Structure formats: structure tokens, C-alpha cells
């Protein structure tokens, strides 16, 4: 699903954020990216959804060569990838149901279509929030907000889920609930890549761990 060969990422002309990264993540895998602050975890994820260009090396995502991809194709690449951040990134002025509809509309679907609404409702019940569908994000707890973000990431049925420190703002009980959702999505077929420095999470679920340090892979 995700293949990197000798990938380098350089910031500000001379700062090597990632050096010589080679890794393969197969379809249906669940992978942790770990490492101390500044190791390059976020940078690695940004490369995958083409939030940043690779400076050297090759990178393939879902069969697409990201070196050769053209700007207008990037949105279509991202429709295969669900992205989740530490700070949820929900629209505060829309209800959580509208937040989900928004993600469907963005990829060209008609928000007034009944099937679209049904899908939004389904994905909200999947994360256990259908009863709060008309609440505004700020009225929910952090764990609930993150579940909405996951629902949004899942609604367009992406092949890959990228999560950058998804439980960073949550306490450990909530973190475990969230982790279960990722686990479940993985079981249903999604490839999950989750960056975190929370050892508790990593120890709880025994998955492959890619350890980064100063931009290099330690073991794989």
C-alpha cells in the first residue's frame, strides 16, 4: 500500500528531517510510527498524503508514484486516505452531522441526497455518536470530538488511515476507546498508520512499530 525507497526530506535547505527512509506497509497492516519529539513522525505522514514533496528517493502510495503526481491529482489521492490529527480539526460552527456531510460534499456528492445522509448517519453510529448528531463540536468531550474526526475520515471509505498523535489531547481511558476504533477499522480492511510517542498505546496493542530518531529508522 505504501512503499518508500531511500526517501529524504530536507527543510530550510540544510536540515534533514528524514534521511534514507525505506519501508513497506502492506494492505491491511497496522503500523505504529514512534520516536521522540522532532524525530520526523509528522513529516513522514505528511509525505504520504502529499502534504509535502519528497526531496530524494521514491514513494508509492496505493500504486501511485507521488514523485510524478501532478497537483490536480492530489485531491483524488487524498480521497483514498483518511487523516486524523491531535486537534480534531472539526468545523466549530457546524453540527457534527454537518461536519460529516461536508466531507462527503467535498468529494462531489450532493449533500441533499438521501443516501449521502444515510451514510453520514451510519458512520456516526459506527463511532457511537448518532444520538448527538446535532451537537456542535465544542460541546463534546475531547474523546467524542476525536470520534467525530474518525467518522469523518471513514465516511468516504478510504483504503488508508493516517493518524498523527490522535490521542495526544486525551486522557488514557479515552485514548483506549479511540484506539479500539482504529483497531476495528483495521480489522475491516483499512491500512492504518498511527504516529505517537505514547508508549502506553504501543504496549497495549502489539503491532509493527517503526521507530524513528532524528529522521532515521532505528528498526523495523
Amino acid at each position, binding site marked *: 500500500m505504501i512503499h518508500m525507497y531511500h526517501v529524504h526530506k530536507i527543510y530550510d535547505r540544510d536540515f534533514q528531517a528524514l534521511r534514507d527512509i525505506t519501508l513497506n506497509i502492506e494492505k491491511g497492516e497496522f503500523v505504529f510510527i514512534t520516536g521522540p519529539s522532532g524525530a520526523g513522525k509528522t513529516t513522514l505522514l505528511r509525505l504520504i498524503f502529499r502534504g509535502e514533496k519528497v526531496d530524494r528517493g521514491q514513494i508509492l502510495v496505493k500504486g501511485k508514484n507521488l514523485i510524478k503526481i501532478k497537483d490536480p491529482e492530489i485531491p483524488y489521492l487524498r480521497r483514498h486516505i483518511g487523516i486524523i490529527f491531535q486537534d480534531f480539526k472539526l*468545523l466549530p460552527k457546524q453540527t457534527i452531522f454537518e461536519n460529516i456531510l461536508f466531507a462527503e460534499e*467535498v468529494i462531489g456528492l450532493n449533500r441533499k441526497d438521501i443516501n449521502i445522509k444515510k451514510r453520514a448517519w451510519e458512520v456516526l453510529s459506527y463511532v457511537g455518536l448518532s444520538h448527538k448528531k446535532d451537537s456542535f463540536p465544542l460541546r463534546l468531550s475531547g474523546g467524542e470530538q476525536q470520534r467525530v474526526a474518525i467518522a469523518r475520515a471513514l465516511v468516504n471509505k478510504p483504503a488508508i488511515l493516517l493518524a498523527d498523535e490522535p490521542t495526544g489531547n486525551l486522557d488514557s481511558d479515552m485514548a483506549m476507546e479511540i484506539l479500539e476504533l482504529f483497531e476495528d477499522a483495521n480489522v475491516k480492511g483499512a491500512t492504518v498508520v498511527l504516529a505517537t510517542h505514547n508508549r502506553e498505546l504501543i504496549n497495549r496493542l502489539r503491532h509493527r512499530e517503526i521507530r524513528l530518531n532524528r529522521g532515521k529508522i532505528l528498526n523495523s
Partner: protein
Amino acid sequence: MILLRYISRSFREAIVSIKNNRGINLITIGTFTISMTIMGGFLIVYVNFNAVINKWSERVQLVIYLKDDLPIKDLDEIKKKIFSDSRVEKYTYISKDEALRAFRKRLKDNSGILDGLDTNPLPASFIVTLKDDLMESDYLKRLAKRIEGLKGIEDTEFGEGWIERFETVTLFLRFVIIAIGGLLTIGLIFVTSNTIRLSLYSRQDEIEIMKLVGATNWFIRGPFMIEAMIQGLLGVLLSLVLLFIIYRLILFRFEYSVAILTGFAHISFIPIEMTTCMILAGIIIGCTGSMISVGRFLKCSTISKSY
């Protein structure tokens, strides 16, 4: 169908955005109104000035003074020469007597001076006017040169020389309008692109999320373009209303004096074609301005660098 949905969505979003950023939108619309009013004011002056000149240039004429006691043959020769020129509209023969009568009229109260005359000192003349194409006093001069060579011609003279002066003024006015129009257009594009950039900033999060879930650039761009086009349209419409009010006021307050000044009775408003052009310009300027700023914004804003 998809295009229709795209447009209707863009419209809906644009209107929401205008409602949410009322302040900035009013500012842009205001700036449009101001600039277009200035532009329109110039157009009104230009249009009317042009009309006045056209009126006046009816007086562009060549006067050919004839020698006294000219044989019929020479007279016919001259007539033929004048008439054969394709651009001459008409020529009028003024006899010595007619000339004296006209002169008497011009002297008005002082015409008593002429009473003591034994002979009529004024020459007979042809007055030649050209066809429509009024701006070419050069042509008239060339015609005069050609005719001067003929036998029996005492002198030639032009009607007042006003036209020449006003040709330059019209040229100048046209130059000013184009210059100001150009400047205002650039200024307006600047201003709209600025406003749009402000509304982009205020919707940064939303745009980031759109990019995150795979929105195409056109999807993001749509509402902003419509927003700017609405701004441009409203601005121009407002300026037209304003111009019309100003126009009525001028008509009311200054018509009489402008009329004596120009010798022309009616001041007209901007003609309908130019009005249409102004409206189109507003929309296109809005569109261009938004394209520029959204383009730049989409290029430089990458997703969520939360390092």
C-alpha cells in the same frame, strides 16, 4: 447536472461567506462603487463632450472668397472642382450682397457705419462643408491647398479653428479616461484580491479541512470567485445608481449653465452599451482578483504543519 450543483453550491457558500464577513464585503463593494463612480463620471463627461464637438464641428467649413467680377466660366470651373471631391457634403454660394447683409447683422447696433458706403467692399464666396467625418480638419486644409491654385480665387479661410483645438481636447480626454480606467482596474483587482485574501484567512481552517478530505482546487475556489463577482456586480450597480443621482442633480443644478457653455442643450447619461461594459468589468475584475489571491493561497498553504 454536476456543473449546476457546483455553481449552486458555490453561490450558497458565497452568500454565507458574505453574510459572515459583512464588514470586509461592504468595504470592497464600497471601493468598487467609488472607483466605478469616478470612471462613470469621466464617461459622462466624455460622451457629452464628444456630442458637443460633433455639434460644433458642423460649423467646420471652408470659405472660398472669390475675386470680384468673375467670368461665369471660371465660376463653373471652381464649382466643378469643389463638387468633384467625394467628401464635400454641400457648398453654398454667397453673393456680395448677401455677404454685406450678413456683415451688417453681425455688427448689430454699429451697423450704422456701413450706411455711408459707396461700393460693397465684401467679396462673394463659396462655403464648403464636409461630410460627417468631422475630425479631419487636415483634409479640409488639403482641399483648400488644391483649390487655391484655381483662377479667380481671392483667398480661403477656415471656420474658426475651434475644431482643431477641440480635437486635441477630445484626444486628451480619451487618454485620461483610458489611463484612469486602467489605473482603477488595477487598483480594484488589488482591492478585491485583498478582500478575498482576508476572507480566505478567516476561513483557513475550513479550507484546510477541505484539502484534507480531498477537495479539488476548483471546489475550494468556486465560492470565493462567486463572492468576488457578487461584490463586483453590486459595486457597479450601486455606482450606476449613484451616478444617475449625481447626473440628475447636475441636470437640475447646472444644466442651464452647461448649456450656455457648450451651446448644447441636453446632457446625456452613459449610453447603455457602456453601462453593460461597466457591469461586465465589475464582474470580471472581481473574478480576476479572486483568482489571483485564491491561487496564491492554495499554492502556499500546506496542510496542517503542526510540528
